[in-house]
């Protein structure tokens, strides 16, 4: 289950995932269960829900349209609060900044709570190379870290792991008794293991869910309390955020916190919604603002709205493709529907397959709490990838042939007739294993005549 999937595409990886159908069923049902919890939570707000999504979407749209001012407002307020603010143009610079802070404190160990941004920047690998030990403290993240993997879901990092496998992993790494698979027991094993880390590490990294331009504070949401344990026990707290996490005012948290946990897991709110405004007395607090392609995405009109994302994961849970292909098939830190419209912005060549890993069913856009038109952006990315020349030549040739046939009625009717004939006479020609349709599906039986032919025979207008 390694993550060195960078040279292959979604379809291939998804095919691999599908070789164990029982496991696909289990993965699908687990995530569908969360989708259902999300539905119940949304309905619990009744007629408040849809307007709330609308408001959240509009607040984000406004913020993005005034982002440069809000960033400066935020920076100033944060500095006044005693927070040191850093700016990173890309992942590399982000990693260097973090390492610089560690070096200044001679720190070679740290605890980190969940931050998809640090995943995006590959911070762990970077620090490891520099000899820094990073302990991920979110239980799910710790599990994938011990297994030398990456999260397969932004909210549920080890949703692809079974408890038997986790039991084995903990037995190997944390010394839990062999064969023990009880989730309570395993969780407690991790609790004891990580408690020791919290008590001994002097530096803590956290992510950021929301940052408030007006007050210079930032909010971190967890259920486990790991961000708080890390941050409050540390001498140095480093918070890392993408520049799109800003919202204008504190009161806007009312909107976003009502939506976030309900969309993510169906909870009314996460257990902890921690508002960090000033460092604790004697503590150092750093905040790294990261661009890493966001300003480019902001300039792409068709894709700008993807920056509204609050990383709730609802689009993952509802996506029928994600549920049946697993997070790693997306070969990028942020998988799922939203990842498929974010990744090509960073690297079209590497992620050209992702906008096609969808049926464009549109369920993602419907659950999205900030109303990102995800499926429309998937469609739009497909057009951009063609324009920019990232489609295979063979496909372009086939599409051109199709376009020619479909724009000439005479050609079309000949092609159709021919197609039906061939299929009727030699079913094996089309119905073979090289035809992906036929691998697990029968072809439709070709009829005697097309509708056009029938119409010509049976309706007056047809005798033209």
């Amino acid at each position, binding site marked *: 289950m390694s993550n060195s999937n960078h040279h292959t595409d*979604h*379809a291939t990886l*998804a*095919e691999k*995932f*599908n070789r164990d*159908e029982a496991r*696909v069923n289990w993965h*699908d049902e687990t995530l569908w269960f969360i989708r259902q919890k999300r*539905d119940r939570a*949304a*309905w619990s*707000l*009744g*007629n408040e829900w*849809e307007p709330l999504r609308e408001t959240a979407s509009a607040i984000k749209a406004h913020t993005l349209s005034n982002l440069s001012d809000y960033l400066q407002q935020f920076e100033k307020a944060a500095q006044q609060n005693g927070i040191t603010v850093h700016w990173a143009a890309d992942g590399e610079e982000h990693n260097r900044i973090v390492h610089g802070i560690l070096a200044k404190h001679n720190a070679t160990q740290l605890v980190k709570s969940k931050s998809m941004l640090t995943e995006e920047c590959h911070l762990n690998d970077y620090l490891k190379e520099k000899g820094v030990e990073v302990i991920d403290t979110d239980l799910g993240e710790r599990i994938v870290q011990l297994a030398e993997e990456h999260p397969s879901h932004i909210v549920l990092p080890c949703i692809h792991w079974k408890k038997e496998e986790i039991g084995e992993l903990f037995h190997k790494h944390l010394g839990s008794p062999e064969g023990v698979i009880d989730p309570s027991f395993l969780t407690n094993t991790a609790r004891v293991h990580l408690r020791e880390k919290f008590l001994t590490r002097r530096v803590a990294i956290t992510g950021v869910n929301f940052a408030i331009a007006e007050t210079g504070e930032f909010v971190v949401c967890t259920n486990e309390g790991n961000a708080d344990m890390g941050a409050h026990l540390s001498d140095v707290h480093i918070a890392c955020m993408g520049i799109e996490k800003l919202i204008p005012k504190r009161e806007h948290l009312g909107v976003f916190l009502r939506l976030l946990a309900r969309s993510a897991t169906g909870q009314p709110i996460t257990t902890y919604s921690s508002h960090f405004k000033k460092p604790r007395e004697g503590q150092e607090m750093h905040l790294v603002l990261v661009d890493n392609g966001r300003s480019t995405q902001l300039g792409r009109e068709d894709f700008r709205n993807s920056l509204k994302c609050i990383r709730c994961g609802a689009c993952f849970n509802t996506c*029928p*493709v994600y549920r*049946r292909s697993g997070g790693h098939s997306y070969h990028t830190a942020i998988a799922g529907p939203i990842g498929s419209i974010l990744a090509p912005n960073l690297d079209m060549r590497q992620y050209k397959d992702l906008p*096609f890993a969808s*049926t*464009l*069913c549109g*369920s993602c856009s*419907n*659950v999205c709490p900030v109303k990102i038109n995800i499926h429309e952006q998937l*469609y739009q990315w*497909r*057009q951009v990838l*063609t324009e920019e020349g990232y*489609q295979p030549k063979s496909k*372009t040739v086939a*599409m051109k042939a*199709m*376009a020619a046939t*479909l*724009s000439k*009625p005479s050609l*079309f009717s000949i092609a*159709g007739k021919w*197609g*039906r004939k061939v299929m009727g006479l030699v079913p094996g020609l089309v119905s073979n294993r090289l035809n*992906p*349709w036929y*691998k*697990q*599906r*029968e*072809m*439709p039986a*070709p*009829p005697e005549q*097309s*509708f*056009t032919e*029938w*119409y010509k025979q049976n*309706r007056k*207008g047809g005798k*033209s």
Partner: protein
Amino acid sequence: MRVGLFIPCYVNQFYPQVGIATLQLLEKFGCEVDYPLAQTCCGQPMANSGYESLTGNCNELFTKNFSSFDYIVCPSGSCVLHIKEHLHSAKDRTAATAIRRNVYELTEFLTDVLNVDRLQAAFPYKVGLHQSCHGQRGLHLSQMSELVAKPYSKPERLLNMVEGLELIELDRKDECCGFGGTFCVTEEAVSVKMGKDRVRDHEAHGADYITGADMSCLMHLQGILKRQGSKVQVKHIAEILNAQ
């Protein structure tokens, strides 16, 4: 009322009976229907593959074929959605705009334009309705399970008018079947798995037939049903609403 009948390319070639049922239904309700013989396809297969740029000639042809009608009706939500969202014409902008506004999927035409509240149809079977995504989430033929909003369903309303027909409940009433145009071959594994799961849901609830407003989804499900040797069959909603 002059209605232009738009029959998707694959329906024309593989499922002529769906075209016939659509035509007969519309005629039953007194529409003056004409089927432009020079029609081919809406261009969606290319556009969804990223080649919307190649659909220009297709669009011009479509506009030419259908510019003279009050309404354009088609037994496929997916094709209608594509026309509604992407039909443009350099030669005749006004006509293209009018077509985008006047193109209807069959069940929404019966419900919203013809205000059908009674049908002369009988189909004494247990039927599962497959909500095709483009019809449902794109054209809003039915309420979507993701939204906190009052339920309704145009196809269900019509099916309930059919004598003897029993609509079954599903565990997942609007999950995608995995057809997805070229997705069905480029992502064969996931596509088939999605289809198998849809089929299982219908089978578990005792369906004799799976119906829907999009033959492409049904063709995909049919392919799986046949391969599995299932007794469950697929039938386009037009055929059921037209069944005697």
